[in-house]
């Protein structure tokens, strides 16, 4: 059994991501709702950290992730938990601030026992045209350094 990531579009609205992990659904689920764990992996390229991680794991709870490259560049994401069914399912909405907020991305993450591991399936709204443009230009949520450097210059973050 492989742990290969798959990404497929579903109709004209959704992206579906699957990935297998060698851990129980409880463990993988926990890594998605415990701020101390989230801070250790949801970081994108090397060199980035998440100095602020708020994840209130309850329906209506708030999400706030702030990323930094340690050199003055950064951006953040906010969201709300819609539904939790531990350790099977998380439904939440999120938006990135680049720095203008992108339209809400509706995300359903499921954790299914798969042999001695877990199959993660994440179904997301495909970003609209303006959002994709902003994402690709800024290297997306966790993109390329060169793009971040452009964003920094554009926003004057270097000067701070």
């Amino acid at each position, binding site marked *: 059994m492989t*742990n290969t*990531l798959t*990404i497929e*579009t579903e*109709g*004209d*609205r959704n*992206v579906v*991501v699957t*990935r297998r*992990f*060698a*851990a129980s659904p409880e*463990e*993988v689920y926990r*890594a998605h709702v415990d701020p101390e*764990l989230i801070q*250790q*992996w*949801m*970081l*994108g*390229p*090397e060199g980035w950290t998440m100095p602020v991680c708020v994840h209130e794991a309850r329906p209506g709870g708030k999400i706030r992730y702030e990323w930094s490259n340690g050199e003055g560049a950064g951006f953040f994401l906010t969201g709300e938990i819609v539904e939790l069914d531990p350790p099977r399912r998380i439904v939440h909405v999120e938006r990135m601030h680049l720095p203008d907020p992108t339209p809400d991305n509706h995300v359903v993450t499921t954790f299914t026992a798969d042999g001695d591991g877990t199959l993660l399936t994440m179904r997301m709204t*495909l970003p*609209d*045209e303006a959002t*994709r*443009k902003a*994402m*690709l230009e800024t*290297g*997306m*949520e*966790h*993109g390329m350094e060169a793009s971040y450097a452009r964003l920094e210059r554009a926003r004057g973050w270097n000067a701070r």
Partner: protein
Amino acid sequence: MQSQRSLDATLAALADPTRRAILARLARGEATVNELAEPFTISQPAISRHIKVLAEAGLIVQRVDGTRRPCSLAPDGLKELDRYLETLRGALEKNYGRLDRLLAKGRKERKP
């Protein structure tokens, strides 16, 4: 800019099973509208409409050959969609690789 705008059209075009079948046929090589219509029960005008959607989405191109208008796959039709999905893939692979190591570490620490 043009390529950014076209992703909406690309995805809408791909959302239809008949249009995906047309693309699958064209992946095997150029074909006329008549040839494309053959395997389907729907009318040729309906096929022509699908072809128009695919052409407008930049997925296929039509050339003029006398009275024939053979269709073929556009070489760069899926490039922009691919670029978006590859960027997403790169971001997720980094994250999930880290999560793998974190989960392995958690297991080790809990063992007596």
